[in-house]
């Protein structure tokens, strides 16, 4: 990392960002009162889930510089624990979350203790291998997980919140609020981490492990703390996702694609910043929905670039909807090649240059 993130160059009071996050949260909290379109709420739920996962990864990957490409393991453990307990033991999901998070944390500690001795590409490889081991375990432990068939969530018991009984889990509203709350929580945790001793230690580890170690920072301990924090939010997101979609199987719940998407969210927005994963989530969710709904093809047709009835037009209409992973691939390649600091980093650099120019021009 060549340029330090803004937080390390000047220490600001956490009040302003916390107030901003809470204000954004309050505004978003009002949305379901005015918007009833299930599609809009659905997109927001996807956005919140993406924010949670990207920000959770950012704690260990962005601040700590430990690029785990195996976060699907925690996502899957969270999702499977809650769903298995709900379907086979009739445990309500909000209670099921307790063992789910505990398991994810324990798994993170085990994985961390093993893999944090490794560096760079070796760590990345080990994290992938661990996630694959978890996926194969879920695939083969058929008594518990139904194997490749996956588990369908039949129904969720009623939930009482402050005297109000919620029974309608087909509606998107409960998921909207739980997603929002968790997204706010993880962003606030990021704000806190960025300004805490943990955050400074992590950034020191990211910049130079050996230097950090020689200054007396216990490397493995702080990496483990960050990973446990990251894993628990990821598991929570997994549980929420599985309940929201109502289905979980090893391929969609623990596959390498999930791990890659999590990393992409943070990378595209900009790693090691509070706003990065939020921006990344917005970009990725908007983009994949635009593809799915064929908005891109419509745009190309309307712009006169492609004729609707031509072979290319038909081909695009038919296939571009399934191409979101292709676009992810292109995006990550472009971001790495042309703005390795992500969208937020690129905007920050632009703002800095502008300020410098203004300062020079000022008399």
């Amino acid at each position, binding site marked *: 990392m060549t340029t330090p993130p803004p937080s390390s160059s000047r220490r600001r009071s956490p009040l302003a960002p916390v107030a901003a996050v809470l204000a954004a949260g309050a505004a978003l909290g009002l949305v379901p009162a005015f918007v009833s379109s299930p599609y809009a709420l659905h997109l927001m739920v996807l956005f919140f889930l993406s924010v949670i996962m990207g920000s959770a990864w950012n704690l260990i990957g962005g601040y700590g510089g430990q690029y785990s490409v195996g976060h699907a393991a925690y996502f899957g453990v969270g999702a499977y624990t809650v769903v298995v307990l709900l379907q086979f033991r009739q445990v309500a999901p909000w209670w099921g979350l307790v063992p789910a998070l505990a398991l994810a944390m324990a798994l993170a500690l085990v994985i961390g203790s093993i893999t944090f001795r490794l560096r760079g590409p070796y760590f990345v490889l080990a994290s992938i291998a661990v996630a694959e*081991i978890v996926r194969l375990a879920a695939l083969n432990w058929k008594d518990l997980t139904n194997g490749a068939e996956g588990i369908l969530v039949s129904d969720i018991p009623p939930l009482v919140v402050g005297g109000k009984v919620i029974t309608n889990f087909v509606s998107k509203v409960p998921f909207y609020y739980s997603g929002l709350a968790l997204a706010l929580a993880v962003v606030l945790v990021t704000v806190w981490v960025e300004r805490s001793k943990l955050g400074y230690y992590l950034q020191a580890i990211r910049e130079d492990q050996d230097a950090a170690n020689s200054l007396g920072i216990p490397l493995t301990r702080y990496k483990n703390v960050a990973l446990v924090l990251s894993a628990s939010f990821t598991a929570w997101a997994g549980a929420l996702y599985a309940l929201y979609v109502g289905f979980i199987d090893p391929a969609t719940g623990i596959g390498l694609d999930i791990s890659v998407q999590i990393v992409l969210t943070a990378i595209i927005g900009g790693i090691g910043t509070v706003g990065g994963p939020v921006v990344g989530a917005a970009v990725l969710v908007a983009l994949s929905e635009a593809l799915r709904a064929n908005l891109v093809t419509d745009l190309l047709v309307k712009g006169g670039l492609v004729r609707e009835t031509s072979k290319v037009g038909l081909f695009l209409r038919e296939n571009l909807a399934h191409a979101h992973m292709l676009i992810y691939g292109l995006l990550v390649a472009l971001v790495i*090649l042309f703005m390795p600091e992500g969208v937020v980093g690129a905007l920050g650099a632009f703002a800095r240059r502008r300020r410098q120019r203004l300062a020079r021009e000022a008399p």
Partner: protein
Amino acid sequence: MSLFLQSLLSGVLMGAVYALIGIGLTIIFGVMRIINFAHGELVMLGMYLAYFLFTLAGVDPFLSVLVVYPAVWCFGALLQKTVINRVLNALPQNQILLTIGIGLILSNTAMLLFTSDYRILTTSYSSSSFHLGGVSVSVPLLGSFLVTAAVTAILYWFLIKTDMGQAIRATAQDRDAAQLMGINVRWMSVVATGIGAGLAAVAGALLAPTYYIFPQVGQPFTLKAFVVVVLGGMGSVMGATVGGIVIGATESLAAVYVSSGLKDMVVYVLFLLILLFKPAGLFGKSRV
């Protein structure tokens, strides 16, 4: 005992192909210190090339390597010159993400072009086998083993005897020193990536008669190639050769004595154990 020999033999035959994939990965790593996460997708590319050469032009998959290798060599070289070359000095994580991105682009482009249908390349000898001292030997696997052995022998000759091979090895040993000795290290990087990509595609072509061919087929090969390379030692061609055979045999024995569903798990656990206890691998000197 014959069960043991049987699974050992088919494991070794399969392992030779893993070795070929791993050698490609290790050459690219050796020269540029970049781990190619799109390696399995190059195997996939080789499979599709062999498939279309067979179905459209009637070329036998074992002969098609003569076309597949140069074609994918050029593709790999182009990829190096246009994209990978730009991140030679970037963070290793960014290099990895870039190649993951390339892999996604390749597999999803294949899905757009060829759909995600499973394809099968059926030759006259696809399911034939013969008996040898109580052990049955699959003809396509034996064929791929023999071609692999020939390709590996040529590669060793190239790396050890020719000037260019020595230049590649010198670049892998010490890029700066090689440059000071007048070696064109930029060109060597292009050549090495071409060779690595070509070998992966050849392996794909050799696997085509015995494997389902579909756009996502590559991913497990990427992981397996890493296991092979880490076992042998990053950057060691010799290590990858031995590593491939060992992993093939382990996988095949695990399928028989543990369970066929868990054979990959056994391989990954082995991988973690190697990373932890012998990270330099069997033949490597690289530092973790």
